[in-house]
């Protein structure tokens, strides 16, 4: 699209100008505290991860993470401003300083972590690329010669091509720029199969006219660890973001929820005491935050499990099973280093 080209060109220009400024700027934490809010980059609309509700408020797993960082820094989840970004714009927006934190279902890969001036702080959702069909196909191995609808600007194209090449199958890629067009192409039969990360497929399926006719195939063709990222080179800010995520997971491990954390304040369990900042020596000073930073996250946002179930799990229309995203002690691989 021309507008998209213009937007990208504009973003590049802004990047050039902003970069000349931010070279002299101080740390992100100081800047964030000074302006009084965190500018958080999110997706413009993936139900469950980040989407606006009927009141115009952003909700979702990725949005919850923005709020968690705000809770840790300000003790107030409302001190976040959101920038909705397309896949193409997201890295430029982060590199240029337009946003402080990118929490937009972004896959952590080698190239992105090393070449693009950003650092991934962890994984908040273990995903994988899959296929959705509505024509009775049972396995991805039967897709030789199919037309495939792809939403552009992700690692999706590469994984798809690798999978078809590895199985010596042919395909026709049809790469759309917008989710709406991708769904339309799939529904109107321009393509036989729609490919994206499985989490997205579940939410796209809800947007179809006949969700029951479409199925998500069992094959997962890639590892897609989705996680938040920050600009490279600001160690303090990076650690705040990393430990905000760890705190959410650790809270679930310790059984701390937004409902019970106030009662647990009186708990004698040393790991709980350390978590809520009541134990001397393990407070927020290492992060340049107040001692109750982790308490604020759990109190105001909840632990990882709460956030998951509320947004994408059994309490949401998506009903995605925890699977890989369950705690390490419950058959998944969600694991956080201890807070001590």
């Amino acid at each position, binding site marked *: 699209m021309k507008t998209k080209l213009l937007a990208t060109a504009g973003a590049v220009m802004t990047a050039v100008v902003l970069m000349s400024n931010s070279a002299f700027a101080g740390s992100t934490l100081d800047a964030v505290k000074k302006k009084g809010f965190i500018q958080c980059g999110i997706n413009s609309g993936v139900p469950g991860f980040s989407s606006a509700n009927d009141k115009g408020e952003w909700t979702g797993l990725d949005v919850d993470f923005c709020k968690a960082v705000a809770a840790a820094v300000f003790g107030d989840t409302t001190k976040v401003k959101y920038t909705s970004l397309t*896949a*193409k714009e997201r890295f*430029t927006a982060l590199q240029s300083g337009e946003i402080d934190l990118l929490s937009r279902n972004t896959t952590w890969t080698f190239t992105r972590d090393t070449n693009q001036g950003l650092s991934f702080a962890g994984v908040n959702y273990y995903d994988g690329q899959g296929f959705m069909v509505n024509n009775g196909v049972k396995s991805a191995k039967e897709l030789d010669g199919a037309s495939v609808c792809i939403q552009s600007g992700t690692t999706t194209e590469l994984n798809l*091509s690798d999978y078809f090449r590895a199985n010596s199958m042919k395909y026709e890629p049809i790469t759309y720029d917008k989710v709406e067009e991708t769904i339309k192409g799939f529904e109107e039969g321009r393509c036989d199969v729609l490919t994206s990360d499985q989490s997205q497929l579940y939410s796209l399926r809800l947007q179809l006219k006949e969700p029951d006719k479409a199925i998500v195939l069992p094959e997962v063709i890639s590892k897609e660890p989705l996680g938040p990222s920050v600009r490279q080179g600001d160690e303090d800010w990076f650690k705040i973001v990393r430990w905000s995520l760890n705190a959410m997971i650790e809270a679930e491990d310790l059984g701390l929820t937004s409902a019970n954390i106030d009662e647990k304040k009186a708990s004698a369990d040393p790991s709980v005491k350390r978590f809520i900042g009541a134990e001397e020596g393990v407070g927020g000073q290492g992060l340049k935050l107040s001692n109750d930073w982790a308490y604020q996250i759990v109190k105001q946002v909840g632990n990882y499990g709460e956030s998951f179930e509320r947004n994408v799990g059994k309490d949401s229309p998506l009903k995605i099973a925890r699977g890989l995203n369950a705690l390490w002690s419950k058959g998944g691989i969600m694991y956080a280093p201890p807070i001590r």
Partner: protein
Amino acid sequence: MADQTPQTAPGKPSLWNDPKKRGMLIQALVLTIIFAFFAYIFHNTLNNYAQRGISTGFGFLNNSAGFGIAQTLIPYTESDTYWRVFWVGLLNTLLAAGLGIITATILGFIIGVARLSKNWLVSTLATVYIEIFRNIPVLLQIIFFYSLLLKVLPSVKNSISIGDLVFFNNRGAFIPQPLPEAGFNWTIWAFLLAVIAVIALRKIAKSIQEQTGKQWPVFWMSFALLVLVPSATFLMTGSPLGWEIPEQGKFNLKGGLRIIPELIVLWVALSIYTAAFIAEIVRSGIQSVSHGQTEAASALGLSHSQTLKLVVIPQAMRVIIPQLTSQYLNLTKNTSLATAIAYPDLVSVFAGTSLNQTGQAIEIIFMTMMFYLSVSLAISIFMNWYNDKMALVER
């Protein structure tokens, strides 16, 4: 008069008081400042890139791209480089622009002339067409035509077929693909020979007409040459041409030559949109030729078609061509809207997928902008040359 002071010879005025030198000085100063400004930005960007660990430069062009493209005019596989992707996208853009320019011009001329028609129905229809299509944003038109095409055309299993040779469905148009066999080259050579013969024939005919006033039926002679010579050769060499006919595959039709629906939509939408503008340009061009010219032509005994061909159109062209150029430029730039409907043009495959995979935003956007700039300049240069050729020769 002893106290007469010696007159000093008027010395050179100072640098600042010489308007010519002052002008040059100021210009040099401004240029230096502008240059320094851009050098600063450039330097700073590189610096920041290095600081943040973002790789720079055009080295990424040699890396393997690794993704597929639906329509390629040159051979392309996933293991080819980003440089190849650039060319694939570039050619797809040029294909859409070229096709669009040809049909928009033809359609525009027809509608422009129709608008001046004395027939009420014809001229009203032309007016309605122009007012509708030039007043709706072209992106909306593209998306509308795309939705319409996907809705109207049947699925692969229920393809519309014409004699089981040509098929239409929502995956595109499928036509038999010619497969040249050994000896087909002779036919191509014969055709080229015929073209050269036609050019020579026209020259001879023109000089004969200028000397003696006699006219040859050049059109029919050229037509005969172009059709008869190649077909005779084709038959004499034993019809060395096979056809690959599309047939039903598992998901899609296999074989044959395929035109993807995205190309059809882009082509149709851009042609229809630009034709509305061209029609207005043609109308204004024709109206700019004063009625006296037509009357003079009638007085000389020229027929209606001769009047149009020899008097009105050559003069109208002077007005039409410069404006036509800017419409061609618009059409070429509008092809970048293709991303909306998944046509694999330069913006989609290079400034889209490639940019996202490599993260080299500045380099890729720069290359893409340079491409559009070069194409636009090339069209401008060509149209200026054509304009000079068509301009009135002052004698």
